[in-house]
Each structure stands twice: as C-alpha cells, then as structure tokens.
C-alpha cells in the first residue's frame, strides 16, 4: 500500500500510475454512460439549471464524504454523522429563532464548533479508551439523536422563525452559483492540499495502511485518530447548519440514516473499508454518482416501486465495474513485481 502511495507521488508517470488512475477513469466512464442514458430519456437533464440544481443538492454529500474518507482511511467508520447534523442544525436553528439578528457566519461557526465537540468526544473514546469505532459511533449516534429530541422537545423550528440572512446561507448564490457549491469546492481544495502535501495528511494514510509500522516510525496514532474524528464532527456540524438553512426547517429526525449514503459515496469512490487507501477524486466521483441518481431517477418517470430497485442496481453495477478494474490493476501490479 505504501509503495502505491510512493508511486503516486512519483512525478515520473510510469505505467503503474496510469493504471491506478484508470480506476477512477472507470467510474467516470460509467457516470458519462449513465448521463447519456438519462439525457436520451429526458432532455431536460443536461440543462444549465438542472446541472446547478444537481450540484447544489450534492454539495453537502461531497463535504461529508471528504470527512468520511479520512475516517475510513484510518480503518474507522463514523455512524454518528446524521445525528450530529440533526443536533447542530437544531441548536443553530434555535439560536437563530431566539436571536434573529445574529450574523449568519457566526451560525456556521457555532454549528461547526458543536459538531467538532461531538467529534472530539468520539475521537477520545476511540483513541484514548480504545473502543471500536463502529460501537463508539453507534452508541453516540443514539445519544446525539436523543439529545436532539431533548433540546427540541419534539418541536420543529420552521422557516418563519428563521432570519432571511440565515436562509440565504445555503439558498443564496455568488456569481450565479449557489453558496453550497462554493463551500464544497473550497473543502475539496483544502482536502486535496491537506492529504497530499502536509505531514499530517500523509500520517493519516500511514496509520490506516499499517498501524504497527506507523507507530514504529514515531507517528502518534492517538493524535491522528482524534484529529480525524474531530474533523469529521466539525464537517457534520457545518453541514447541519447548511442542511437546516437549505430546507429552512429543523426537525428531530433531520438527516436520519444519511450516514449510510455518505459511506456509500466513499465506498463507490474506491475508499477501502479496510483502511489505508482512498483518493479524493474517487470520493468526489462516488458522491457525484449518488447525486446524479437522486436527481435523475425522478426525471426518468419510472414507477416509485422501481426507483429503489434501479438505484440499487446501478450502484451494484458501478461496484462490479470497479472491482473488475481493480482486479486487473492488481494483476498487472503482480506481473510487474515478477518481472
């Protein structure tokens, strides 16, 4: 795994790196085919307005997938993010309802801090107490969800209680492009730099691909894990604010089950659930594929009974294509080694 990363960083583009990139090309190819298919059935699919709508609706998924990617790379998983979204969204909505004049950017910060604190609790349980990520986050998922119902008393915060400035956070646009898209692009750039060009970013891969040798080489694993879950929590908190602003409503069951969509986007994008590998471009494509499905299926005018089935079938197909390409890559890898 580490040799792979070493090769990927090698500026000399040899055969192997081309093959590794091919894997994402496979997904891209699949997405293009899907787009052509949808466009034939409904010509309004590839219009400027629809593409913007699609991108806006996929932005939150992209931001969350970035966080989930680094969690998965460290061999972890975070099931609590849907609940963190709900909690931070609800608290922020209540804050806005109580102080309508509050600066919207302050709301973003408020939600992010709440999420980061939630993430830090998870990180401490995993890094210091040594709980399994799936158990720790499952428990906290229920705790955070329960907290959301507790602080909201089961009541919703509705759009009339929210200030225009707050709703404009996710509803407004800059240069004709929705704020959500800008925020997602910003985080993609930050993560690209963070994962590829910073020491901490490389340490995340090291911890995930081989914890023992990472420890031997002096990487403080606990610190990396704490950081990863805190980042995931912070992003979830931020997305909670954006979610509530986008739909102009906060309810206790906001984003319930959304963690599975995010994990699916990562796995589709080629992130290994066994840790150690995963690339930003792949995750981005995975999230976009899910975004396209959510946007295109209603446009296809198929029976709702078929919709879920078709969605599952397409995901399965994408994963199979990925697996075949990966097998071929691995075989080439072995052949090269033998040679």
């Amino acid at each position, binding site marked *: 795994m580490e040799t792979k990363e070493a090769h990927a960083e090698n500026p000399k583009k040899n055969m192997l790196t081309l093959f590794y990139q091919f894997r994402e090309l496979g997904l891209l190819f699949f997405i293009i085919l899907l787009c052509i298919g949808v466009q034939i059935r*409904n010509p*309004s699919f590839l*219009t400027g*307005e*629809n593409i913007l*709508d699609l991108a806006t*609706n996929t932005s939150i998924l992209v931001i969350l997938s970035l966080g989930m990617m680094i969690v998965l790379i460290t061999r972890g998983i975070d099931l609590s993010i849907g609940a963190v979204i709900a909690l931070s969204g609800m608290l922020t909505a209540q804050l806005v309802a109580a102080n309508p004049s509050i600066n919207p950017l302050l709301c973003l910060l408020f939600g992010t801090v709440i999420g980061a604190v939630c993430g830090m609790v998870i990180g401490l349980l995993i890094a210091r107490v040594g709980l399994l990520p799936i158990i720790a986050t499952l428990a906290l998922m229920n705790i955070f969800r329960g907290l959301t119902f507790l602080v909201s008393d089961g009541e*919703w915060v*509705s*759009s*009339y209680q929210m200030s225009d400035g707050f709703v404009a956070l996710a*509803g407004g646009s800059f240069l004709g492009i929705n704020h959500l898209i800008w925020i997602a692009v910003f985080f993609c750039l930050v993560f690209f730099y963070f994962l590829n060009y910073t020491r901490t970013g490389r340490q995340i891969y090291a911890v995930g691909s081989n914890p023992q040798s990472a420890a031997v080489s002096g990487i403080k694993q606990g610190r990396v894990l704490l950081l990863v879950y805190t980042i995931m929590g912070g992003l979830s908190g931020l997305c909670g604010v954006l*979610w509530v602003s986008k*739909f*102009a*409503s906060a309810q206790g069951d*906001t984003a319930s089950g959304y963690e599975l969509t995010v994990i699916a986007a990562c796995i589709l994008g080629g992130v290994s659930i066994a840790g150690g590998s995963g690339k930003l471009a792949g995750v981005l494509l995975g999230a976009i594929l899910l975004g396209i499905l*959510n*946007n295109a299926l*209603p*446009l296809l*005018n198929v029976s*709702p*009974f078929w919709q879920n089935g078709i969605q599952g079938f397409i995901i399965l197909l994408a994963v199979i294509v990925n697996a075949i390409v990966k097998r071929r890559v691995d075989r080439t890898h072995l052949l090269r080694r033998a040679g």
Partner: protein
Amino acid sequence: MKKFAKWVGMFVLVCMLAACSQGAPESNGASSNTDDGPKKYAFVFKNTGNPYGEKMQEGFESAVKELGGEVILRSPDQPTAEGQIQIIEQLITQKVDVIAVAGNDPDALEPALKKARNQGIKVLSVDSAVNAASRNIHVNQANPERIGRVQIEAVSEMIGGEGQIAVLSATSQATNQNEWIEWMKKELEKEEYKNIELVKVAYGDDLRDKSVSETEALLKSYPDLKAIIAPTTVGIAAAGKVLTDKGLEGEVALTGLGLPSEMATYIESGVSPWMYLWNPIDVGKAAAYTAYELGEDNISGELGEKVDLRDLGEVEVVEDGEGTQIMLGDPFKFDKENINEWKDVY
C-alpha cells in the same frame, strides 16, 4: 419552575378533592336520579403545554359549556400512557359521566378505560385512537373523501380550472395519502375539471432532500405545470422552498396539507395561496358534542347511528378496524388572513 408547577398541580388537586367532597352527595343523588345536576365531561389530552392540545381543549370546553355540562380538562406532564392511566383512575373516582381521551398508546390504556366503562362511564377517543375494546367510539379529525375533493376544488380555483397539475405525496405506501389521492382522482372525473390534467404523482418519502429533488424534477419534466398538491407537511414545505428559491410564485400554485408553522412563510409570500389541515378547535368541539350524545344515551357508538355535531353538521358512525368512528367534514383552510394566529399554535 418545575417545583412551582408541582405546587400548582397539588393545589388544583386539593381544590378538586374539595369540590368532589362537596359534590359527593349531589352525585350520589345523580346516580339514582339522572336528571339532577350537570353531567361531568372529562377530556384527557396527551400532555400539558402542547399548543395543538390546548386549542383542542379550548374547543371541547366551549362546546360542553354551551350544552350546560361541567368540564374537567386534565393532561399528564409528559406524553406517557402511565400519566394518562393515573388521571383516568382519578376521573373514575370523581364519577365523571364521559371521558374523552387522546391516547398516548392505543393498548396501554385498555385496563383503566375498561374499568371506567364497567362503572358506566362512556369513553371516546379523539385525534389518536385507543383500541376498540377501550372505547365506545372514536372521533377522527379528517374525512378522507372531503380532504381529497377539497384539494381539487382549491387547485381548480387557483389555476382557473385549466392546466397541468401534479401531486407530491409522502411514500408510495402511505395509507392516508393514497386514500386522499384516490379521492382527488375521483373528483377530477367531474365534468367541470375536464381541462385539468393530473400529470404525475411523485413521492418525496417525507424526506426533505428527496421531496426537493422530486419537486425540481416535476418543474423540469412539465414546464407548463400550473399547480402542485402536496398532502403532507414535509412535502408541501419542501415544495414551497423550491418554488421560493426558483422565484415561481404566481406561476406555479401550491396547496395541500401542512402544519401552519411550517407553511407560514410560504403562505405569507403567496407561493401557496392557501392550504388545509384539520382545526384542533373543531376536533375538540366534535369530541364534546359526541361526548354529550353519549352521555345523554342518544347514541351508543353502534354502526349506522347519526351524530349531531351542531354547526359541524351531522355525521354517520362508520367502521374503523374492529371499532367504530365518526369523521369530521371539510379540513380547515389556512390563508394569509389567519396564518399569523395559527403559526405559533402547531
């Protein structure tokens, strides 16, 4: 604050006990001579501090007073079956004549309510039903046929009786919504709606993100769409948000069923000229009239009986699973005029 509430609660209880002991000889007399003294009508809601429940109690109280009965309004602090059971036990001791209850659990109240019925107390459930063995009758807040038909009447008025319309529902399996949509389709068969075309029934699954995607898809697939009917709160609010974001108010009309709080913004802005939901005051009143008829032995909750709901019309007792129920008529209309007073209620 909680302590204070407890003291107040105890004070009220003491007062009630006092009232009870004073009234004891009277009610003893009443059991032998039923015409003596006003009858006692109790209403047990799910929990205190619920604005929706308060409106329902308001309706119940005013209707009972108008009929000359005595009203007892009781609710537990928390929406639990245990709290309601305690209250029902107390009401049995108080020898009330009728208990109306919005059940926190369909089955858990059965022992307490059966005990009440064995002592000759009439029981009806309102809003959320208790099981058939625990009640004489259930008062259902909605008549599916009227809900469906009223939506089409509204949409026809909004778009001038001509154009394409679409429905944005909850899940494709949702029993309530599917029944309403069936009635919408039946209403559309009428001659006066021949120029209205229902192009699609979309399902947002009561999820915000899916409802948004489905609304966007409707707008793109049917550029001439004139109106959307969304008979579900999450759906109608999500559609309202999409129409607002796309600046389509006045071009695509929106109506359906939704919580006034969720819809206030969109009704005030005109995106949805008006929409519907049941009115808790009317539900409370209907419960009171039904309780009165039960208390006076005018009805017993059998199939086919007629219940006189005064200004809400006369309704027939119909089947509901193993038990019976009555259904209220038209849903209540929320528009620019009244949305402000309702948005804080529920």
